[in-house]
């Protein structure tokens, strides 16, 4: 081996392990990666931040499993018990709830910064698509997890959310039954969502995340086209340990923020779900679904002879598909030319989401 000189400075344990699992190769792999330094470097931190928050979710999620009981009769009560009787139960649940929200936020920032800096261009198409897959999984995590406390808000959010695929022609009612585990949202839906939330989605997320991280390691960080052209001399810092240590500072700050949010704004539980009570006034979904919710609220009942909800739902479906296929649709950037059109489309999408979310929180719920 070429590393023999440095091997001598290592301890005997290192050498023993190296002969058995090849630490030197792992070290070479870790040292291979460099992080480009330029005026957009700050956006590189949001992927790692999302990863950190995902790890917080795994840890707090496992802790919550120890007390949670997935049935319509016991779910609400088990969380009530967790929040009031179990020591630091409120803290674990509040961190889980806040970290979920922050994770979606950092994921959105990561996604839109990659989109605006055109990091999806060749050869990173699969990196991009695995990232869009992870966004889908994160939203599915949020949607299924929201039901688990079995409270009023969760019940109606799930009724509406599972009704949405039901609107589709032909496959609609089948999909709705498959999601709900029956014709209505009942205890059967709760156990189904529980299984999806704690087993299916974590497995898929691990696979997608593995692919995503492997590709990031393989291709390195993407340098925005503008920066690539301008500077002939490329500045960079090693990923390990320089960038990772900077990452850690961010992670520690995020943890501090989480603790503060959990302490000052602990997660609420609300009223237990009752399938025979009207939807509460002012009902709204999690903030990241708000723009879709508000769109469905504002669409008229019929648009050109088609039910308004169908128009909205098909529209969001096409939006998701567009996002997934951006690397193949943006032909100009694939040829190495500037593509301002896509920049404007992205700015349009973000403005739409922000405006509708704003309306969702400010319009009177009873008018």
């Amino acid at each position, binding site marked *: 081996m070429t590393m023999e000189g440095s091997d001598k400075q290592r301890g005997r344990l290192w050498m023993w392990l190296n002969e058995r699992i090849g630490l030197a190769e792992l070290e070479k792999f870790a040292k291979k990666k460099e992080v480009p330094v330029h005026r957009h470097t700050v956006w590189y931190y949001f992927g790692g931040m999302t990863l950190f928050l995902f790890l917080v979710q795994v840890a707090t999620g496992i802790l919550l499993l120890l007390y949670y009981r997935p049935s319509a009769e016991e779910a609400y009560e088990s969380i009530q018990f967790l929040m009031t009787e179990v020591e630091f139960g409120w803290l674990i649940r509040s961190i889980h709830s806040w970290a979920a929200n922050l994770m979606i936020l950092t994921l959105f920032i990561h996604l839109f910064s990659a989109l605006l800096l055109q990091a999806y261009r060749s050869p990173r198409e699969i990196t991009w698509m695995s990232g869009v897959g992870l966004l889908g999984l994160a939203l599915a995590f949020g949607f299924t997890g929201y039901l688990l406390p079995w409270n009023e808000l969760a019940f109606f959010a799930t009724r509406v959310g599972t009704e949405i695929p039901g*609107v589709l022609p032909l496959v609609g009612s089948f999909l709705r039954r498959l999601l709900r585990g029956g014709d*209505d949202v009942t205890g059967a839906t709760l156990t189904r969502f529980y299984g999806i939330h704690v087993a299916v989605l974590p497995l898929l997320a691990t696979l997608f995340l593995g692919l995503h991280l492997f590709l990031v390691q393989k291709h390195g960080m993407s340098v925005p086209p503008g920066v690539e052209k301008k500077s002939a001399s490329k500045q960079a810092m090693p990923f390990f340990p320089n960038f990772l240590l900077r990452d850690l500072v961010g992670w520690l700050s995020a943890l501090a923020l989480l603790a503060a949010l959990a302490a000052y704004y602990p997660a609420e539980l609300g009223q237990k779900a009752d*399938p025979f009570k009207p939807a509460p006034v002012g009902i709204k979904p999690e903030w990241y679904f708000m723009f879709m919710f508000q769109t469905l*609220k504002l669409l008229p009942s019929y648009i050109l002879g088609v039910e308004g*909800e169908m128009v909205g739902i098909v529209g969001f479906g096409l939006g998701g598909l567009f996002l997934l296929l951006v690397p193949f649709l943006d032909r100009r950037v694939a040829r190495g030319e500037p593509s301002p059109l896509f920049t404007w489309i992205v700015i349009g999408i973000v403005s739409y989401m922000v405006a509708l979310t704003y309306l969702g929180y400010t319009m009177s719920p009873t008018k």
Partner: protein
Amino acid sequence: MAEETLGPDLGRRKILNWLLGTSAGAFLLSVFYPVSRYLIPPKAEESTSRTVTLSLKPAEVKANSGEIFRFGNQPAILIRTPAGELKAFSAVCTHLACIVQYRADLSHIWCACHNGHFDLNGLNIAGPPPRPLEQYTVNVRGDQIVVSKGA
């Protein structure tokens, strides 16, 4: 014969590949068919009752108010119009299946989820709902309220 033109080895390889392919296919089918059937929940017993007698007394339902009640396994709403008439509808909003409520300030039925409005005949009059609410027949027999589906 195919074996003679391809030579004995290639012919054998072809047959083996075919056997391997079909058994792999059969294996996957025997795994995914039961799993896919397992994922689809069994049909629940549909509530066959076409009438329900409410626990509410007619006198308990004030004018310009509404109450949710169970009709089989579905929620329904009983309202008394400002004119004093008793009416009943399915309480499942025709938009995205939230449960509607009676708004005394508007004197009609309203859905909190997406701001859908229905008049006192269950007609969708504003907001996103595409269809009217299903109306039920209300009969008052002595001090009992009986709600029935269909004519």
